[in-house]
């Protein structure tokens, strides 16, 4: 295996795994909060929030990448402010994390929201009569009983982030060792004479990761890997 993939291949794979993992880790708190609000609360503007949530799934990814550039690029309003305090995302691997997080966010929120919807609210009411405040009910009842859906959502978001291309290449470009993720490496090899063997190698790796993620998500959602029991 070590000779089958070149050092550049390993670099791209490692970067993709790191980017995908971190994109889920940093998205998760926001996704949990938004999913809870959408599951439990009725408020003015809810439809607009749900529509905005779907945008990364519907917009061409390259448009999402352009939007990130317009907001967080070095010469963009927010990007300039962040650069003043030493935080730069454009053309950095951290920007790839942002792009991947944005693209995976809708899947994460939707999965978690479905999981929250599935928690019997009568159990939360019972916990409330036993003296549990809102945070305690969330931590001891809602979260444990939705862990399976949450885990499946994380796996799906990870897989989406791993395969992210359009937004990433628009926002952070293709810089070997910095932003050259696996999908970008495959695209680059497609445009290089004699690059087909590399395309095939990396495509197999991508296929393996995608299959592993899909199988994990299916197993978790199907309850084979017991993380949280279903409601009574």
């Amino acid at each position, binding site marked *: 295996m070590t000779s089958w993939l070149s050092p550049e291949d390993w670099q791209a794979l490692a970067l993709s795994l790191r980017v995908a993992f971190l994109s889920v880790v940093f998205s998760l708190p926001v996704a949990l909060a938004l999913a809870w609000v959408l599951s439990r609360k009725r408020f003015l503007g809810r439809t607009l929030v749900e529509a905005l949530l779907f945008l990364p799934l519907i917009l061409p990814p390259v448009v999402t990448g352009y939007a990130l550039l317009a907001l967080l690029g070095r010469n963009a309003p927010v990007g300039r402010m962040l650069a003043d305090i030493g935080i730069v995302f454009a053309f950095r691997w951290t920007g790839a994390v942002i792009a991947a997080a944005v693209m995976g966010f809708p899947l994460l929120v939707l999965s978690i929201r479905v999981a929250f919807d599935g928690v019997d609210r009568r159990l939360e009411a019972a*916990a409330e*009569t036993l003296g549990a405040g809102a945070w305690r009910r969330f931590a001891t009842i809602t979260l444990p009983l939705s862990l399976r859906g949450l885990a499946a959502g994380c796996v799906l978001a990870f897989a989406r982030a791993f395969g992210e291309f359009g937004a990433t290449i628009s926002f952070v470009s293709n810089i070997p060792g910095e932003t050259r993720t696996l999908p970008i490496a495959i695209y680059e090899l497609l445009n290089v004479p004699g690059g087909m063997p590399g395309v095939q190698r990396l495509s197999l790796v991508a296929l393996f990761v995608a299959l592993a993620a899909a199988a994990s998500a299916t197993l978790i959602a199907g309850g084979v890997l017991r993380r949280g029991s279903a409601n009574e």
Partner: protein
Amino acid sequence: MRHAFADLDLDVAFRADARTLALFGDSGAGKTSILNAIAGLLKPERGRIALDDRVLFDSEKRIDVPVNERRVGYVFQDGRLFPHLDVRANLLYGARARREHARTDFDAVVTLLELAPLLRRTPSNLSGGERQRVAIGRALLAQPGALLLDEPLTGLHFEARRQVLEHLRRLKRELRVFTLLVTHHADEVAALADEVVLLAAGQVAGRLARDDFVARYLAAAPETAV
């Protein structure tokens, strides 16, 4: 208190002087709604709810104590045990939520309700009667000022019903917690209640002492209440 539902106008007023008060009436009379209002799970349109000197709800004075601060132990008709926690964790949930050492000793409740063999089981591995006993124990260990029992024996087969009833009698003997029992079974009232409020179509239809209730509703010789 008053509250309008789609199919019922609830308008009740009563005071509990007895240690165990039963709300007796047919399904749909509003019994569970009264318990929900006392627990804070239902906000009446108008009215006043007080437990001893504590006002839990007063529509005129705009008092509405949050559910988790009302200190009522609610035993739901469907049990509502937490499926991801074992029996021990279910029992201690309320005591931990309130961060206090249970005055009503854990061991005493476990002994009274014969829960010791069940402590490591999860609710999915309990029978109906066992689930109800755990639900009662959980409510008691949360140190309630009042215990609300919503049809505690409904859905249980004969033997389980007999056992849970016996446990409730024992609890009444051993513990001094005001209990509000909701039921449409006269024998439960006879076994547990000191006084009975009759409900019909959302209204209080009468009030009887236990013996008078037995004379009116039970044809057989009454069981001696404990």
